[in-house]
């Protein structure tokens, strides 16, 4: 059985005028179903670049990336959107909801992209919103939702079509601590109750308790573990979790 994501020796180099900038340098990482991996590190360390490569949005300059067992580095540019569509759900820092569509329609759009048509779309969209506790906001437009509600709609949208992998970029950055906590609880549940692989890029130390693993990235490389970032685990908050570890997850 293959892992959800397997990154091996991945480097990413950008051209910046005449010079070249290395954003990632020989990164190895595996993400399994049922775990929440937190990617942390200072700004410009390469964590968003890594998330983009895992999400088949960026191509690695070298190395290999497997998503749901498929070596995506061998796929053409035209084939990558199909991988994203079938296997990956995205949650963005700025929510990226479509402001002219209601919460329900935002989820419907994602279902439509995934090829679900007909009368089942509304039913499924309602079910997904219900999963994040917002079924009653189906007809509400994003401008009338709070930040936390928007992010939960974004999570519901990411869940459309039951992807194996959820990639989230700073999902709590624009939220207060209570709302951020609620969103991360949802992420946690997705991994632990629904068996999704969840990767979260974050600067937010308040969310550490929700990660099974914390991977620090510095200067484009995976930093060695220091043990200083192991969070205290309020176990009662994390239903179904066996605890958090740094580097190596518990129970593996």
């Amino acid at each position, binding site marked *: 059985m293959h892992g959800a994501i397997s990154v091996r020796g991945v480097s990413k180099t950008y051209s910046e005028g005449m010079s070249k900038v290395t954003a990632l340098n020989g990164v190895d990482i595996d993400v399994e179903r049922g775990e929440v991996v937190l990617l942390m590190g200072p700004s410009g360390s390469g964590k*968003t670049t890594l*998330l*983009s490569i895992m*999400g088949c*949005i*960026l191509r690695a300059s070298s190395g290999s990336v497997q998503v749901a067992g498929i070596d995506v580095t061998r796929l053409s540019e035209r084939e990558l*959107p*199909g*991988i*994203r*569509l*079938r296997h*990956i759900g*995205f949650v*963005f*820092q*700025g929510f*990226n909801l*479509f*402001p*002219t*569509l209601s919460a329900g*329609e*935002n989820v*419907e*759009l*994602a279902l*439509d*992209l*995934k090829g679900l048509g007909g009368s089942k779309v509304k039913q499924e969209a309602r079910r997904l919103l219900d999963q994040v506790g917002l079924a009653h906001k189906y007809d509400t437009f994003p401008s009338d939702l709070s930040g936390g509600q928007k992010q939960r709609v974004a999570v519901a949208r990411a869940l459309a079509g039951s992807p194996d992998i959820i990639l989230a*970029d700073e999902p709590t950055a624009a939220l207060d601590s209570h709302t951020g906590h609620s969103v991360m609880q949802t992420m946690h549940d997705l991994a632990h109750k629904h068996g999704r692989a969840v990767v979260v890029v974050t600067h937010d130390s308040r969310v550490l308790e929700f990660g099974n693993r914390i991977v620090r990235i510095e200067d484009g490389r995976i930093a060695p573990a220091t043990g200083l970032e192991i969070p205290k685990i309020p176990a009662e908050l994390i239903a179904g979790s066996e605890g958090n570890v740094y580097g190596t997850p518990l129970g593996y």
Partner: protein
Amino acid sequence: MPPLARRNLFHDKIRLGVTLTGIVFSVVLIVVELGLFVGFTVTTSSIIDKSNVDLWVVSKHTPYIEQGSPFSERKLYQVLATPGVASAEKYIVRFAQWKAPDGAEESVQVVGFNPYTRVGGPWNVVAGNVEDLKTPDAVMLDELYKKKLGVTRIGEVFEINGRRARVVGFTHGIRAFTTTPYVFTSFKNAQDYTRLNADQTYFVLVRAVPGTNWKALARDLENRVHDVDVLSTSQFSNMTRVYWMFTTGAGIAVLIAALLGLVVGVVVVAQTIYATTMDHMREFGTLKAMGAANRYIYRVIITQAGISAVVGYAAAMVISLFIVRASQNGGAAILLPWQMAVGIFFLALLMCVSAAVVSINKVTHLDPAMVFKG
């Protein structure tokens, strides 16, 4: 599919207003210019098209109806003696000078026909009767030109080339492209008005025996009757139309104006659809990141363009119909046949979709990684 295109389009009502104004302006301009072109085209050859005959015998190398040259009446008898000819009538279309009692003069085109058979005679008679044209000095003209010719009612007397002309009736909507009004009268009167010799005619209008191959009949007539061209009604009509619309450049000017309308429409719509696309670029980036193929996003943009085209076209047609109706009482008719209305709909659609191409090009090169940039 959720109504993303429609919602994006109607979300910014000011921009939508600008887009629709551009489309309406463009479509109305195209309708007016093409309608004028069709109106002019129909007008240039209306006398020929309404003649209800199969063939026109004209002097050799006559380029269009106003340029006919007289020929001997004997050719009429040669025509009548040709097998396959059911009837043949002498016919005159010739410029002359109209003079009102107050001395005001205007150019007119005298149309002389046989009022007994009515071949080549007036149509849409709204006052008087074609029968009345059998009487000496009787003329009939279109009510559009009453003011121009100083006519107020039936029975008034004028002069054509110094000869008496009494108005016995009016037609409706028989325009002349040259703005020189047609004055219908009997062939005999027309001979006098145009000072044509008694044994001459300008044209011979031929009706073929039903079932006759008129092309073969035309060849026969050209072999039997010398120094004439024998043209089908549609041939002569086309020659006249081509002369006035293209040789004189009048039609080209109108078509260029229509093309200008199209260009203005494309530019305005392209600009506004591009601005709308730029406003929603982050959303398109999100769609791409989610795995949407480019064609899915193209569909959103093209749907926006299509909705704009349909709404803009509908509004433009309402305005156009008022203009078309208003033009019916003017000297230049704007015609809007249904085929043209349908054609302009597809033109509006094409205009809006081609205007969306710039936006599509922008989206094609959109980097989905933009969604991670703050």
